[in-house]
């Protein structure tokens, strides 16, 4: 008898929510088709008038002019493009009754012998123009006015509804245990990033390089990956080639499907007798991603799903580590929660990236550290110290500059140790480990053997930049100070979710939502930093000496972030430091929070209400970001 409500709660209601998601997709995704007369539905060809023109400079162009008699949902343009290896860029315009011709999309024909591209129109227009900047022939157009459901879009609606329901159903538990709220939001909205984003690259920051490393690690090989990587890059190439042109090559579900067919046809032939890879410091960040790729591969899944499985590997590692970081925290739980579920942190967790390893293990190490720091009379246990130090080391392996965080355990008070000898041993060895981590980055730079200058930026040279700094110390100091003071606030403000390569995708919802969500997340972060109060009374406040230590480490961390970009990503002699992004500050936010969070500033809100407010605001922010980005960019 008692089990019946549970079945309703956990089975019946989610099924109803799934049906509701299907209904939403039916209405939102097919709005113009629902009341369309029967004769206008279906798939049919439409005749287009070809207007060939040549301008004064001899440049040829072709405009395909359509005069549809009614509503058009989607149109697919087909044309032979044998012998071509480039994406053909074209613009789409429409004229609605009694209106001017307006631009509505930047589109791309892929380089196949029988090339097809689908355009989402969703309007009743008098005239539609597709303008190609070259002479084209034999183009045919097919209109698709069929109602169709989109499984990825349904998943987005479903996770939003499910997240809302779970937060409501578990509100009492979340009120007491914030980590459960983290699991709910991460495993619904967060998981969506890993699952529904296209199995392509140029979605997240440098994900082509990260994916290449994961493939290499998964095969323990770095020789024969090129073909598959080329195929995966395929769709993304148009994005970088035409960045800023308000569009990309797979903005409709039909374009995605064609891309996946190409991707899944790619056969990988790996020569077993060539195990290779010398290994690298940063490999540790790719282990779970490589495991995901590998496990999907041995299960015989197509390449499209292998790519998703690799992202899932990253996401699961991130979620698990952050869950324990929040669970183990004796203080700053809400701060850890907001950092872990920040838009950019969650987005990279579902992508190919080294950042999730850095962020998650930083939070885990910091969570234990702060709990130990604020309980000065409680002896430091070996097991907790091991997890803390291992977390900081793992956090610093992909990005050695965060080795600076190993300086935090040096601030632990004498009361944590049973003897001064014990304390001395702990601190000396920890300091040694910190120096060894930083040496992996600093030594090659100082010895002039660093190969870390970025090949994408012309004029970069680590040794050249060091020579410049030594010969112009005042100028270099000025460049650093100017960069840090002028840009840090902007970097913090812009720690939001964005597609680095697709952010010009030209949809109005995304453009409108992004700044608002940006501000909302930043305000939420500031809110928890200033108001998250201790949950138990057994903790002291951080003292002045420790505060100074944390401040010194924070400033060193910021300086190292800028120094790394100055040396490796900025052309020698440049008076501006390039490449610093808001996400590099994420591992340093807990340090800033310690300095800014004061007991007497806490608000009077009841803890359970406080937790639910934080979780609710964060979930809303994350869901709006997910829908505006994914649906507007990819699944029209």
């Amino acid at each position, binding site marked *: 008898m008692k089990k019946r409500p549970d079945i309703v709660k956990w089975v019946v209601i989610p099924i109803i929510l799934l049906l509701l998601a299907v209904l939403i997709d039916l209405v939102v995704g097919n709005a113009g088709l629902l009341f369309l007369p029967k004769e206008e539905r279906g798939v049919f060809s439409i005749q287009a008038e070809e207007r060939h023109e040549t301008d004064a400079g001899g440049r040829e162009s072709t405009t395909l002019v359509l005069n549809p008699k009614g509503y058009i949902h989607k149109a697919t343009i087909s044309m032979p493009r*044998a012998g071509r290896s480039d994406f053909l860029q074209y613009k789409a315009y429409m004229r609605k009754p009694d209106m001017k011709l307006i631009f509505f999309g930047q589109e791309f024909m892929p380089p196949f012998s029988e090339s097809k591209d689908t355009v989402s129109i969703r309007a009743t227009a008098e005239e539609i123009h597709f303008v190609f900047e070259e002479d084209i022939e034999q183009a045919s157009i097919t209109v698709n006015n069929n109602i169709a459901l989109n499984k990825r879009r349904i998943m987005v609606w479903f996770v939003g509804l499910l997240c809302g329901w779970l937060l409501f159903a578990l509100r009492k538990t979340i009120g007491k245990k914030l980590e459960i709220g983290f699991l709910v939001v991460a495993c619904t909205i967060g998981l969506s990033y890993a699952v529904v984003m296209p199995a392509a690259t140029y979605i997240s920051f440098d994900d082509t390089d990260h994916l290449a490393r994961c493939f290499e690690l998964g095969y323990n090989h770095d020789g024969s990956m090129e073909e598959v990587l080329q195929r995966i890059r395929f769709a993304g190439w148009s994005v970088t080639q035409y960045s800023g042109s308000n569009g990309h090559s797979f903005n409709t579900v039909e374009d995605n499907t064609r891309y996946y067919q190409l991707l899944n046809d790619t056969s990988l032939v790996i020569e077993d007798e060539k195990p290779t890879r010398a290994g690298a410091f940063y490999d540790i960040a790719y282990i779970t991603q490589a495991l995901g790729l590998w496990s999907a591969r041995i299960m015989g899944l197509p390449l499209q799903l292998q790519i998703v499985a690799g992202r899932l590997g990253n996401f699961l590692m991130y979620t698990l580590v952050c869950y324990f970081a929040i669970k183990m925290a004796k203080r700053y739980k809400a701060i850890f929660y907001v950092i872990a579920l920040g838009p950019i942190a969650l987005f990279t967790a579902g992508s190919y990236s080294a950042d999730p390893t850095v962020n998650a293990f930083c939070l885990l190490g910091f969570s234990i550290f702060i709990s130990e720091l604020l309980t000065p009379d409680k002896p430091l*246990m070996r097991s907790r110290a091991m997890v803390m130090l291992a977390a900081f080391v793992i956090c610093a392996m992909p990005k050695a500059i965060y080795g600076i965080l190993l300086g935090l355990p040096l601030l632990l008070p004498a009361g944590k140790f049973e003897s001064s000898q014990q304390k001395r041993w702990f601190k000396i060895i920890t300091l040694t480990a910190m120096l060894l981590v930083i040496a992996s980055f600093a030594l090659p730079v100082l010895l002039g053997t660093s190969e870390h200058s970025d090949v994408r930026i012309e004029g970069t040279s680590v040794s050249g930049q060091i020579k410049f700094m030594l010969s112009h110390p005042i100028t270099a100091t000025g460049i650093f100070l100017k960069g840090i003071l002028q840009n840090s606030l902007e970097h913090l403000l812009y720690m939001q979710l964005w597609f680095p390569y697709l952010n010009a995708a030209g949809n109005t919802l995304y453009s409108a939502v992004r700044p608002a969500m940006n501000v909302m997340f930043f305000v939420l972060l500031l809110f928890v930093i200033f108001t998250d109060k201790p949950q138990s009374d057994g903790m002291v406040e951080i003292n002045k000496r420790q505060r100074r230590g944390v401040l010194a480490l924070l400033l060193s961390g910021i300086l190292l972030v800028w120094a790394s970009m100055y040396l490796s990503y900025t052309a020698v002699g440049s008076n501006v430091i390039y490449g610093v992004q808001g996400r590099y500050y994420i591992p340093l936010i807990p340090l800033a929070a310690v300095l800014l969070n004061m007991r007497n500033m806490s608000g009077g809100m009841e803890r359970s209400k406080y937790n639910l407010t934080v979780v609710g605001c964060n979930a809303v922010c994350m869901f709006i970001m997910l829908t505006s980005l994914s649906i507007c960019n990819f699944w029209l």
Partner: protein
Amino acid sequence: MKSLVEWIKKYGYIALIILLAIIALANIITRSPVYTLLEKGESVGSVSPILGNGTATQIIEGYEGQLYGIYLSPATHGANLQTGVLQIAVLDIHGNELFSTAINGSDIVDNKELYIPIESTELDNGQTVTLQLSGKDFDEEDKLSFWLGDSDLAPFSIGEEKAEGPILIKLEQRVYQSRWQRGYPFMVLAIALLACWPLTKKHEENVAYEKAT
């Protein structure tokens, strides 16, 4: 099971450090083969096209390790390459053939990288060799052309608008390198965990503290 838990409690810590140290050492002292591509500028020679029938050669000198394979990356459309044979040969400094193979034109298809392993033990020690590519029996209209070594073009050349595209040749070399970079993180981790050596293992004290507070 109980004894295993006891063992882990008693020796788990030191066993973990020893394990990490062994992994670190094993990686640091091991040398494993690494296959790298000869980058642009590492080989010398001139840009040589083949039109229809013809031969292009390139001298490769001073490479590290062993020449191990050849990658052909045609950016052109395969329809141009349905006939003919592409012969690949590696010659020593005296013109003796050390390795040779032939590829049918029809195997060179759209944007697909072809890998040809060099099955020869004679290609070690960084000797100077000549890579020779010969087009035979291609149709006059085929205009098969390729560049050797120092082409700027990416192997998968989307964006290029060449009716008769190039085939980019990349040479793969095998060198033996230390895996110290893989061992280093384990070493640092082992050292960091060593810091916890003298710390208390007693859980009781903490429980008492938790209760007191």
